[in-house]
């Protein structure tokens, strides 16, 4: 009798709490209205800019546009990837591409203090601004290699002046390890964010996470059944449709793995690989205002070539090479990130020989012109 009373009481209170809790209505992708071109091509410099980095090695850069038409960049830098002295650095960039001096955004001790966990190394950062709120994701490792990673999250309402305490997102039931983030999120309705993540523990696969603007997680779905796909990058096609391209993690290389959704990320269906070589390197994907899909990646092993391809949203199997943005064997031009700003300009940032972060505004002529252009000769940095 006593047991029944206890159980009844628990059920009644649980139901009341459940009723009071905000319910989850699956959001759709948010499509921004096409913006008027406020920056004339003549005003925009297409010359590459380089961040004056304070460390010998840098990698995995991210960029977002702030509400005041400035940009914020972040990356990890230190003596080498995975070293204990690796910090997350950030700098700001004005509308004309002038970069500020980098400063430390996060170090291991701060993350350890804020999450109450021992932190061995820091990894990929990700910045994303939506409705004036700046979201910051960062990969950390407490034990092992990158397959032991976790994603930490904080947000800021004052352009990164102050942040909420970082907290580790619970994305895996298995000791909450092996969740990584790399490519930018997509905006969604209902004050939500669609975040592409991936796992590297035993199997490699991408997932799509839906969270609200306070970091509360609501949905997590697998992106591809091939268990060698990672670093998903997404492009929204319509309020319910999106394309995700994956880094092909197969040891003997292969082509770009892809999946599509027609229910705003609740389920993902693999489609035939894109006819683009991808020897285990990160990609960047973007849809421009005129409906062109842009893809940036390394088609040759060694990451010495960085190419730009284009396609149309209604013809995902035909891709045209637009430009070889970088081409120098023995060097690394990797981890590209594409961003469309509020004026419709397309920004590209990437790791430049692990020595700097290169920023470019891509000229629309690159994908509007028919012939392939090799801009690598003008894209090098004087050492």
């Amino acid at each position, binding site marked *: 009798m*006593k*047991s029944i009373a*206890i*159980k009844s009481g*628990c*059920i009644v*209170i*649980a*139901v009341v*709490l*459940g009723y009071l*809790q*905000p*319910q*989850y209505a699956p959001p759709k992708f948010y499509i921004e209205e096409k913006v008027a071109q406020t920056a004339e091509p003549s005003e925009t410099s297409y010359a590459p800019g380089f961040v004056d980095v304070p460390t010998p090695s840098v990698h995995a850069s991210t960029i977002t546009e702030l509400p005041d038409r400035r940009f914020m960049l972040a990356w990890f830098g230190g003596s080498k990837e995975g070293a*204990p002295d690796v910090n997350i650095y950030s700098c700001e960039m004005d509308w004309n591409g002038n970069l500020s001096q980098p400063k430390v955004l996060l170090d*291991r*001790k701060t993350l*350890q*203090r*804020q*999450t*109450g*966990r*021992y*932190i*061995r190394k820091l990894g990929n950062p990700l910045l994303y601004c939506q409705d004036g709120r700046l979201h910051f994701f960062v990969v950390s490792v*407490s*034990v092992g290699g990158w397959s032991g990673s976790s994603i930490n999250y904080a947000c800021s309402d004052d352009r990164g002046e102050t942040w*909420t*305490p*970082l*907290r*580790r*997102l*619970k994305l*895996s*039931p*298995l*000791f*909450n390890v092996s969740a990584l983030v790399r490519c930018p999120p997509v905006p969604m309705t209902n004050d939500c964010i669609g975040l592409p993540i991936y*796992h590297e*523990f*035993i*199997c490699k*696969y991408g997932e799509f996470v839906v969270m609200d603007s306070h970091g*509360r*997680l*609501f*949905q*997590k*779905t*697998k992106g591809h*059944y091939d*268990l060698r796909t990672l670093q998903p990058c997404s492009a929204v096609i319509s309020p319910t449709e999106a394309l995700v391209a994956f880094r092909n993690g197969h040891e003997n290389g292969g082509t770009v793995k892809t999946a599509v959704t027609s229910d705003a990320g609740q389920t993902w269906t693999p489609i035939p690989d894109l006819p683009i070589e991808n020897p285990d390197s990160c990609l960047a994907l973007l849809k421009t205002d005129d409906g062109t899909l842009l893809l940036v990646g390394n088609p040759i092993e060694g990451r010495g070539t960085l190419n730009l391809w284009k396609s149309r949203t209604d013809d995902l199997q035909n891709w045209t090479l637009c430009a070889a943005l970088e081409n120098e064997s023995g060097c690394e031009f990797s981890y590209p990130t594409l961003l469309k700003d509020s004026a419709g300009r397309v920004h590209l940032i990437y790791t430049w020989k692990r020595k700097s972060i290169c920023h470019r505004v891509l000229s629309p002529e690159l994908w509007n012109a028919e012939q392939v252009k090799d801009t690598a000769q003008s894209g090098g940095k004087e050492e």
Partner: protein
Amino acid sequence: MNMNVSDWFGLLTTAFAIGALVGSLFRNASVKARLTIAAIVTLASTIPLPFDTRPSLAMVVYALTGLLSVTTLTILTCCLFQFSVPNRRKRIAAAAFVTGVFLYGGEIGAIPFDLFQYGYLPLYALAFAVVGIVLSDAIGAVTIFAGYVLYVFGIYDNYFTSMIDPILWVAATAFLLRSFLLHLNNKKATPSSVPASR
């Protein structure tokens, strides 16, 4: 310290778990002595260690285990107070084992069903909690209820992580395996121990 509530909870419960585990190892000691040992070890586990970024033992363990489930914390508390109901052990172990197979199997891609994703959805979490409360006894019901409340208040991001963790699953699997082997041994031993009637 600028830390969010969930991580405060995680760090403190990890420190408690270390203390409770050590305290419950002293089986012949009185409850008072075990509690004292547990309290001392709990406090000691928060002292910074002299390596790297000077993390405490609790920080290192918390980094490895993540948030421990309410079920694990309840079991450790019961062990500390030497409160045990033998009949309940197998049921808890079986429930933890089956849930873990689906959770962890789906996570590593061994089975094409991802149970974990439903733990983020409030309505599913409520349904799982109500079914769990109905099927369990009073202590189990309170444990499941506590897990649900902590999930509602955002301490646990996912309802399943408030109910089960890998440590509990490994312990449950080992317990079931041991029980099964003992059962097999008893079965083998029984015929030979009965004297022949002829």
